[in-house]
């Protein structure tokens, strides 16, 4: 063994920076980045997080009353998606995992569309807003290589656009996570990979997911910068993603960002987190959650008051209710639609099955 303490024997050395601007109580820890100097500029971020929280509550209520399918709440993680999406340009492409509705809403995916998707209707992924954004990826980490492909397309066309891919802490244990990062770095494509590290992959805690000290350091193996941010500080998330996007757009390749947050509720409506973690742990983590943190900061800057809060809650609830009503009033598609988007043109061999499927419901397509 060569001596370990001799610096000349170190082949390479790395460190993982950590960024946080707002302390848990909303006080300022570090000098804020430019975009956050005016507290009023942070209000849209606050609003987006609150809206997502109310949307999630409504989605769970709809699921509990049999009007929505299994649903993954993002309670406590709203800052990750809002921070990332607010740093993006409209022409960028988002490739989200299944718990990033806060990012999708910012990008222009409608609440009705997200309700439709989790309500079991494919039209929910036919976004009217961001036409090139990917639908959510359910198979964990399988979309990381897609982000490299999308980013390569931008690079080949010499466009100043970037792909932003979001996955969970569990995703970092998968081969396709690393394979996607690796090729993105080899080809130096404009991609940003963001890990929403919410500490729990269903019942498996972060410590059992990997022995690595940080998830961000997995970037080092792929040959790209990795950094960690407080994922409950929306300013830190937006700042890190904005810096990574700038890097990507300047032709300097991809970045991996690990956003430390916490899943304050069940994995999905089909899960019961009480089976595997204590109430004490969860109530401890409530003290760090992103919405009250930013609110405390805004209040401390006289940029927000009780009346603003009441007004915002009322407006958000109204919007969510309106979207839920639109979703609930949406007629299901006819059975023909399960065939008609499989290929550009229906192959002859499927024609008979399509005709059979229509005939067996007696021509009443909504049976």
């Amino acid at each position, binding site marked *: 063994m060569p001596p370990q303490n001799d610096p000349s024997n170190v082949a390479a050395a790395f460190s993982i920076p950590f960024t946080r601007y707002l302390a848990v109580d909303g006080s300022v820890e570090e000098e804020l980045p430019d975009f956050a100097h005016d507290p009023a500029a942070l209000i849209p971020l606050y609003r987006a997080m609150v809206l997502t929280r109310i949307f999630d509550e409504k989605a769970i209520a709809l699921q509990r009353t049999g009007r929505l399918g299994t649903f993954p709440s993002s309670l406590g993680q709203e800052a990750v998606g809002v921070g990332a999406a607010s740093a993006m340009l409209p022409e960028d492409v988002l490739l989200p995992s299944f718990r990033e509705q806060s990012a999708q809403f910012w990008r222009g995916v409608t609440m009705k569309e997200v309700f439709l998707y989790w309500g079991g209707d494919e039209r929910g992924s*036919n976004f009217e807003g961001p036409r090139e954004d990917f639908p959510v990826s359910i198979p964990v980490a399988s979309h990381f290589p*897609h982000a*490299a*492909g999308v980013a*390569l*397309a931008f690079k080949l066309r010499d466009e100043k656009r970037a792909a932003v891919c979001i996955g969970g802490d569990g995703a970092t244990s998968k081969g396709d996570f690393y394979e996607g990062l*690796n090729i993105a770095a080899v080809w130096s494509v404009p991609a940003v990979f963001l890990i929403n590290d919410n500490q729990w992959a269903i019942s498996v805690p972060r410590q059992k997911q990997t022995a690595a000290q940080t998830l961000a350091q997995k970037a080092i193996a792929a040959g790209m910068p990795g950094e960690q941010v407080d994922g409950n500080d929306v300013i830190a998330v937006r700042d890190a993603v904005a810096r990574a996007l700038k890097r990507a757009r300047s032709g300097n390749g991809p970045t991996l960002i690990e956003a430390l947050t916490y899943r304050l509720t069940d994995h999905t409506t089909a899960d019961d987190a009480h089976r595997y973690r204590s109430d004490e742990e969860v109530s401890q983590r409530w003290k760090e959650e992103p919405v009250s943190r930013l609110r405390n900061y805004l209040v401390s800057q006289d940029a927000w008051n009780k009346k603003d809060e009441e007004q915002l809650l009322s407006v958000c609830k109204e919007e969510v209710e309106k979207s839920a009503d639109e979703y609930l009033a949406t007629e299901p598609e006819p059975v023909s639609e399960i065939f008609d988007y499989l290929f550009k043109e229906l192959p*002859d*061999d499927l024609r008979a099955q399509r005709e059979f499927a229509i005939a067996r419901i007696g021509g009443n397509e909504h049976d």
Partner: protein
Amino acid sequence: MTERTLVEAITLALARTMDENEKVLVVGEDVGIDGGVFRATAGLINRFGKDRVRDTPVSETVIAGISVGLAAQGFRPVGEVQFMGFIYPVIDQLLNHASRLRTRTRGRITCPMVIRAPYGGGIHAPEHHSESMEALFTHIPGLRVVIPSSPARAYGLLLAAIRDPDPVVFLEPKRIYRSIKEEVEDTGNAIALDKCQLLRAGRDITLVSWGAMIVETLQAAETLSTEGIEAEVIDVATLKPLDAATILNSVEKTGRCAVIHEAPYTSGFGAEIAARLAEYGLTNLLAPVRRVTGYDVTMPLPKLEHYYMPTAARVVAAARESMEFS
């Protein structure tokens, strides 16, 4: 007139489509300066440059995964997987993403990509290099599975596959990559997908096959002809979606059928063809449908491989048994 091998016809079709459409890219392991382990991409990097002919790291997931991303952005990636034994990670991407993007976004995002891979035994290759697992892909909705059986058909079908607006798995019978030569002109004329190819007309029995086994099947048909048995030979060419009508029409005429494939017996694609005949052509059948296939065994290494491979003699024997059935 130029005689070409099957692998040369593949190269020709790749070059043709790259020339006519700048969105066509080739990605895979060693596809660049090396021209691919079978030289299917030989010379493409010199002609089209390294942006469009891209060596990937050793990651089949990446070959398929970046193709999904590129295709979603309007490119037409053609991914090469070196051997079928390494294609299984690709199934994740094909099944979970490529084949369903159009459906799940209701046409908003589409996936016009091709995955090419050589398959099949008979060339004394190492372990994991000789399997015929085409049936796995035929079970995936939204995916086309295309297998050529000659240089000319390889050229025409690959043109069609790359021009197709949806994902295609294009499996190349590597046993006949270089063993057959035929006239292949660079006409740019595609051969329609989703259609069986009638290779030999006959009145007595229908022999259905694809890929390299077409060689043994045609040999068997010649032998049978000397015995007065005229076999009709159908090359399925596109396994999925299946052109069942051509097969059913042929069996309506002959009343007898044997399906020949190198892949294992159980749940091989021959089972699908036999089932279609049972379902839609039973009253035309004068004998049970026969299957001449590999065995349900792990693909043997080269020393015992020849015991596994179906032969022309086995096809002839199956056809004779079918003819004798009453």
